[in-house]
């Protein structure tokens, strides 16, 4: 078992090292060959493991690979934990990664950084696998930051573009703000549990909570568990781009499209969701933290979805859609529906990777034009891209029978059953989010693939279906986007697949409440036609049809009528403006101010050079006494003698 897991993790690393260090020697074919073999084998082994676990042949595994270090009685290790949660993630990560690897052959063809790109995405796969397989917080943090590093490198892949290197720095720093919280959370875990090992920590969770440890930050007392959970969740807010730390994700679209699919849609950004699910034994003990998670998730789901409507860059529409969907997952976590969240993570990985890759296919066809106002009727030229994009869109909006329907419906229902502070608010956010999801998704779909052709003649001439390496992954992703839920919905959502990995307190078990209405996947979908989310989705679809296809003039008049709202959306609720105009300048001013006044004026000017000047001044004065005239010295001696005798005889004189 150890060998299998090590192979899964290390093969992508090997691929990355070979492609990265010897890229010149092995050439383009060598680079994609070696990385695809690495990830491909890892993918096969992952599915084999998953199969074994479903069949019951393979038990859960928790093993140590090596000792990272010991301090006193504490031992920090690198090790793997294989259970249903990590097995599921293994399959999702390696499969999507493999698809993206293959797709990249076509997408990055002729790019001077071809080998480097393959090296990065393989390295990313390694880091992500380390993250999901971790059996302790140290390794989790390693994977967590390592995926951040590769994300940074890939967003800035075309480092000549200023916008790209602005975006990658922004992504790294915003993530670091989240990691700040994450690290403090880990420090808290060590303090209260005395260990960084998952099993030890989870085993003690209820005991520590029962002790009711509190800590004081100077403003109010915090329950230790709540504090730890919120800190850890701040990390998730960075990585999974939750408001207000979401600002980096739209900008990350500066990177090449394959990584937008792999990193910024399917895998890395869901690391936060995975982490909270992993930490369910802790989060379950704090309703305050759960409420916080729920509300943040709901806000992200609704308000980011709204932004999708005003975007004109094809990738940015999908990016905001990703933000919104991540919000759904996070809200589900808050409602203790971890299984639903993980389930949505999986289905979303497939259909969102599909949508991104389809968008990439369109971008290739359009010769790197990304503005949907300059597209239209692409269906005629790219039929495979069209049909796969349609499948992705239907899955995204939650059309019954498509995979996305099952996961999203379960989330909405579960949040509806939640009884935390803010759960009503969250429920309505998610519910009406469905309308806007359909609206922005079909707006993009129609504007790209239908309506009249708006591209210039030159582009139109060259418009054709993308090559095979591009459309095969689309098809391979479209299949699970439709069908994956048919077999997995029941065991994952309502069965006992996650039983040993996710812990839910009986009183929070919202999914159990949902499962009461559940008979099988077919009737669940049929029932879906009668529910509010379905009709909201249809309303969204028809609104999009009406406004963007049937009567395009309508969209402008609506925009004019709601001008202030439109302005708010166009400026992304002014989050970026706030950061750029308030946070950054204040920090820079503090730095410049401290440098100028603290270091240069006060310490150097006053204290250091000041004391030098003082010494100099004393010297200047005292040298006047060294005049060289004998009578000056004689006078000094006389004065000195007089002073000395007065001092000596003063007591007697006084008597």
């Amino acid at each position, binding site marked *: 078992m150890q060998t299998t897991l090590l192979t899964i993790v290390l093969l992508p690393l090997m691929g990355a090292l070979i492609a990265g260090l010897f890229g010149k020697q092995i050439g383009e074919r060598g680079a994609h060959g070696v990385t695809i073999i690495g990830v491909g084998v890892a993918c096969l082994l992952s599915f084999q493991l998953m199969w074994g676990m479903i069949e019951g042949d393979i038990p859960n595994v928790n093993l140590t690979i090596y000792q990272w270090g010991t301090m006193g009685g504490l031992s920090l290790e690198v090790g793997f934990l294989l259970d249903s949660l990590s097995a599921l993630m293994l399959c999702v990560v390696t499969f999507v990664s493999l698809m993206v690897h293959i797709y990249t052959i076509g997408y990055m063809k002729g790019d001077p950084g071809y080998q480097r790109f393959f090296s990065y995405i393989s390295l990313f796969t390694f880091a992500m696998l380390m993250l999901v397989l971790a059996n302790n917080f140290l390794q989790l943090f390693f994977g967590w930051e390592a995926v951040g590093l590769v994300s940074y490198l890939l967003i800035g892949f075309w480092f000549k573009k200023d916008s790209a290197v602005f975006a990658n720095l922004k992504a790294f720093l915003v993530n670091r703000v989240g990691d700040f919280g994450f*690290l403090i959370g880990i420090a808290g875990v060590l303090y209260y549990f005395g260990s960084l090992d998952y099993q030890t920590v989870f085993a003690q969770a209820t005991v520590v909570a029962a002790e009711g440890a509190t800590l004081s930050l100077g403003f109010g007392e915090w329950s230790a568990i709540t504090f730890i959970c919120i800190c850890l969740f701040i990390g998730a807010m960075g990585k999974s781009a939750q408001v207000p730390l979401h600002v980096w994700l739209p900008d990350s679209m500066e990177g090449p499209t394959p990584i937008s699919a792999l990193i910024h849609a399917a895998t890395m950004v869901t690391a936060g969701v995975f982490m909270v699910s992993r930490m369910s034994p802790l989060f379950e003990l704090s309703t305050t933290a759960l409420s916080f998670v729920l509300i943040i998730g709901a806000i992200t789901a609704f308000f980011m979805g709204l932004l999708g409507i005003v975007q004109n860059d094809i990738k940015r529409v999908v990016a905001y859609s990703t933000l919104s969907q991540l919000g759904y997952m996070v809200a589900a976590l808050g409602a203790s529906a971890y299984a639903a969240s993980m389930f949505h993570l999986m289905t979303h990985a497939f259909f969102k990777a599909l949508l991104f890759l389809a968008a990439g296919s369109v971008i290739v066809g359009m010769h790197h034009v990304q503005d949907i106002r300059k597209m239209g009727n692409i269906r005629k030229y790219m039929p495979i891209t069209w049909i796969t994009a349609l499948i992705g869109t239907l899955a995204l909006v939650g059309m019954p029978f498509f995979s996305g329907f099952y996961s999203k419906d379960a989330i909405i229902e579960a949040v509806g059953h939640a009884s935390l502070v803010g759960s009503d608010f969250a429920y309505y956010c998610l519910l009406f989010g469905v309308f806007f999801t359909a609206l922005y998704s079909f707006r993009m779909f129609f504007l790209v693939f239908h309506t009249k052709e708006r591209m210039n003649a030159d582009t139109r001439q060259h418009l054709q279906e993308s090559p095979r390496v591009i459309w095969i992954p689309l098809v391979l992703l479209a299949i699970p986007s439709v069908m994956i839920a048919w077999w997995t919905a029941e065991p994952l959502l309502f069965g006992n697949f996650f039983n040993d990995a996710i812990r839910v307190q009986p009183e929070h078990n919202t999914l159990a409440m949902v499962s009461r209405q559940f008979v099988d996947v077919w009737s669940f979908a049929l029932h879906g036609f009668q529910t509010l989310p379905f009709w909201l989705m249809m309303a969204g679809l028809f609104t999009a049809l009406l406004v963007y296809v049937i009567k395009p003039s309508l969209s402008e008049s609506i925009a004019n009528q709601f001008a202030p709202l439109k302005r708010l959306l166009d400026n992304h609720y002014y989050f970026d403006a706030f950061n750029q105009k308030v946070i950054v300048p204040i920090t820079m001013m503090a730095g410049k101010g401290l440098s100028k006044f603290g270091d240069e004026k006060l310490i150097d000017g006053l204290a*250091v050079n000041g004391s030098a000047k003082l010494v100099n001044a004393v010297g200047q004065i005292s040298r006047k006494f060294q005049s060289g005239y004998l009578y000056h010295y004689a006078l000094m001696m006389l004065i000195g003698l007089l002073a000395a005798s007065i001092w000596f005889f003063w007591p007697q004189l006084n008597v």
Partner: protein
Amino acid sequence: MTYQVPWLSLLIWLPVIGGCILLFSTGEKKQTFSKWFALTVAIATFLLTIPVYLAFDNTTAALQFVERDIWFDSLNIEYFLGIDGFSLPLIMLTSFIAVIVVIAGWRSIEHRVAMYLAAFLMMSGLMNGVFASADAILFYVFWEAMLIPMFLVIGIWGGPNRVYATIKFFLYTFLGSVLMLIALIYLGIEAQSFSIKSMQQLPLPMNAQHYIFWAFLLAFAVKVPMWPVHTWLPDAHVEAPTGGSVVLAAIMLKMGTYGFVRFSLPVTPDASFYWADMMIVLSLVAIVYIGLVALAQKDMKKLIAYSSIAHMGFVVLGFFIVFALATDNKTDAAIMGLQGGLVQMLSHGFISGALFLCIGVLYDRLHSRQINDYGGVANAMPKFAALFMVFAMANAGLPGTSGFVGEFLVILSSFQTNIWYALLAATTLILGAAYTLFMYRRVMFGAAKNKKIAALDDLSPREFCMLLLLAILVIMFGVWPAPMFDVMNSSVEHLVECGIQSKLTLEGMCIE
């Protein structure tokens, strides 16, 4: 008794004598010879550390490889050498960095090459002496002696404003250490021996401890450097040649923190405890304040110099939280804090050294250290860009690099003292990434700023090898820091269990 190889003496005197020989071969014709000679001596010295490392006993905190002889009989001063888990890693670091510095100066120094190399060889020997001394006076002699070659290196091969920088550097460090000498003499008389061990075991009343603590503090704080006695460092770095900056950052700063674990903590534990809060606050100021100041720098060397100060703040923080932890019976956390600080010293040696080398690589080509003069270097120098990225990320404390290990452990253990310490220290996650990557972006990314940059040559094999070596170490110790912990562990445990116990009453003291 069988004949023993005087390993430590070899480590000290081989480079010093090698340096002396070089001084007599100052003929400019013999440049190539002096380079190869210096490289041979440096490598030989480094190779000598390997048998020492292999024979080093990890399980004891006692001094090993002891050499002891009378030096001044009447004053009880001895030629007394010996190493423990604190000194061995630093000696290895010093000897390693010496090799790197010789390689780095291969082409970039044009005049008086032999003297330049001689200065570095001597410096490395003398610094080994600092870390290997077990006699306080011997320690002091090495401590002061190594200032001289450094002073010359900056003064002769330095930049345009080198005179101001050298005088500032010399006065700062010298004024600090004079008081230390007084303290050492006092302790030597009280203990009737100048051996450091006997000073550590000497019971001292509180008021004496206060005076001695402050005398030590001034000497060590200047070297570290701690806020607010740090302003000599950016100036010295800016004016120093690349090699000087590397030694300064990689090793000289460590002498200050080494002084804390060797003298301040065990000799004056009660005063250290008394002043611990102040020390912690000063280190937190270094981390936050200096981190912000680094953001505003326009000169690459200054930026890295400030970043050094912030990173050394972690070392001091890790050292001085141990008192609160030990009295709270959190021995593990105390050990973790100390280990974290010590690992941070080594890691910072690699990373800051490497970053100064990187800046040197750029400076050799374009003769500018201003960030604004660069832009888009990655286009012309992809190999350099990759290695520079490794060090930039290590400087930002990315897990998987050695830069993470120390910061992580110190943050974890400071949480156990006071959550605010951890919160403030953890700001380095944001600030460290901000200033390092902000610089990287402006220097390396973007389109090539001008023709000169577009035509830059990538790393030569010599430069590539020296940076690659450092990169491998940075990553190796990030992924597997256990060897560092293992070497230090016994000494650290001994310090926590014995060294920092109160000296006010005899009962509290550890008798060995």
